[in-house]
């Protein structure tokens, strides 16, 4: 059975129909990538799954439970969390306080302060620093660590490589192995198609709010992905 199942999801901003009839699923311990151009509706989709956007229609099932109308904080307490686009750290808080807020969800599991510092040793050295003074890469580590502190079963990552140097992106992606091994399923949103295909077992391409292509990234032809990404050809 799938851990997350989204069925015919529509999401709106007022009259604007941003996500149109999207269905997808994520299995236990799987990594799924969602790719798509600017404004395709990727972030909107994740916000609807996490309950931050309540203007939605359709079914969202997590671990057999209907979370479609559930409040965002309860969805998080059930084990779904997100590293939001642009990191959105608590800028006035220290690194450690950011992580500890993540730990206030009350979920038990392998992710503790020590475990996060083991994953990102640099954060341990910076723990007393105000988070807004950190570099982009360090901030992204805090954002990831903060999400892990909730001990999620499903971790959604919205463009975590945006604006970071290639080396740092590599460092962060390498950490996903350790995260997956702790039993967490991962959904990544990427604009970098190659990065997304490398890191995932299943990829969905979003175009103007619809899924234009999906499949195993190793079996999809690059041309098809490009066409689905930019909408240069008609895909069902």
């Amino acid at each position, binding site marked *: 059975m799938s851990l997350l199942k989204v069925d015919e999801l529509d999401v709106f901003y007022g009259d604007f129909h941003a996500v149109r009839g999207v269905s997808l699923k994520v299995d236990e311990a799987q990594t799924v990538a969602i790719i798509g151009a600017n404004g395709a509706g990727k972030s909107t989709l994740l916000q609807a799954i996490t309950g931050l956007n309540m203007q939605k229609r359709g079914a969202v099932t997590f671990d057999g439970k209907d979370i479609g109308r559930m409040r965002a904080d309860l969805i998080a307490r059930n084990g779904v969390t997100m590293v*939001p686009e642009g990191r959105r750290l608590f800028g006035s808080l220290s690194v450690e306080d950011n992580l500890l807020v993540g730990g206030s969800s*009350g979920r038990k599991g392998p992710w503790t302060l020590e475990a996060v510092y083991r994953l990102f040793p640099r954060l341990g050295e910076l723990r007393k620093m105000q988070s807004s003074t950190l570099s982009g890469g360090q901030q992204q580590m805090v954002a990831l660590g903060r999400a892990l502190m909730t001990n999620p079963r499903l971790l959604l990552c919205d463009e975590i490589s945006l604006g970071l140097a290639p080396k740092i992106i590599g460092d962060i992606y390498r950490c996903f192995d350790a995260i997956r091994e702790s039993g967490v399923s991962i959904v990544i949103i990427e604009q970098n198609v190659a990065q997304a295909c490398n890191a995932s077992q299943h990829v969905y391409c979003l175009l103007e709010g619809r899924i234009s292509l999906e499949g195993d990234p190793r079996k999809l032809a690059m041309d098809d992905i490009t066409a689905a990404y930019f909408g240069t050809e008609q895909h069902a």
Partner: protein
Amino acid sequence: MIWLETIANGILLGGLYALIGLGLGFAFGVMRVVNVAQGDFIVAAAFIGLYLYPWTPLHPILVIVPVALIAFGIGILLQRVLINRVLGHDQIPQILLTFGLAIVLRNGMVSWFGANSQSINVGNMRFWGFDFLGMRLGVLPVLVLVIAIMLFAALRFWLNTSRMGRIIRATADDHQVVQLLGVNYRNVYAIAMGIALALSAVAGVLLAMRGSFTPYSGADRLLIAFEVVVIGGLGSFWGMFIGGIVLGVTQLVALKLDPAGGLMYGHIVFFIILILSPKGLSSILTIKAFRK
């Protein structure tokens, strides 16, 4: 010497003004809610104090404890039942809501208690004084300043060190992201409003001990609170304290120069600061922001 004494008394009064601003500034800092009814809640707290202090053991000044607890409960209810329903990008609904609440509260108090001037009687303490560096200072005003400083420091300490304080600071930074971490921001807001009203209530009771009040005093109190918060720089913690002191000193010095001036000179100083530095004094003094 008489001027030094005036300035000292201005500082003592200013500490209380700062406390009046703290509740408003705290609510704004955490929730971006401007509680227009704050002034009338302050007066309502004074009335509660007026009815409770004869039953307060040890000393009448301790009535601030039960009044603060009651105000905390009222704040939680207020946020849960009313203000949480109108939160959103648009701030007009909550301003209209609290404005309406202010009117209801004020007229309710007039019809219940009458329009007479009242005061909370702390007994002889009102007349106690002591000599300090050649100045004659009142025991009650000094005590009030000490309480104000202690409340500022305690709140700051609690916010910085406790689990709930950390969640409040995080929620103030980003009330959406805290939800992704399992925090119900509406509960956090309710607690923050409880704290804001409790602080205001203490200010209201202390004000009623130092001077007198009527059901109509709310508008003045709210104005002071606004000025303290704006002078301090919106949401700046110790900036607010300095804002209160500036107002207090200005008022007493001006009263000496022009006994008919009342609060006017305080408003003028406020106006000048607003023009010179729209972000408040804290931007000049680079005081650490409230959301540390």
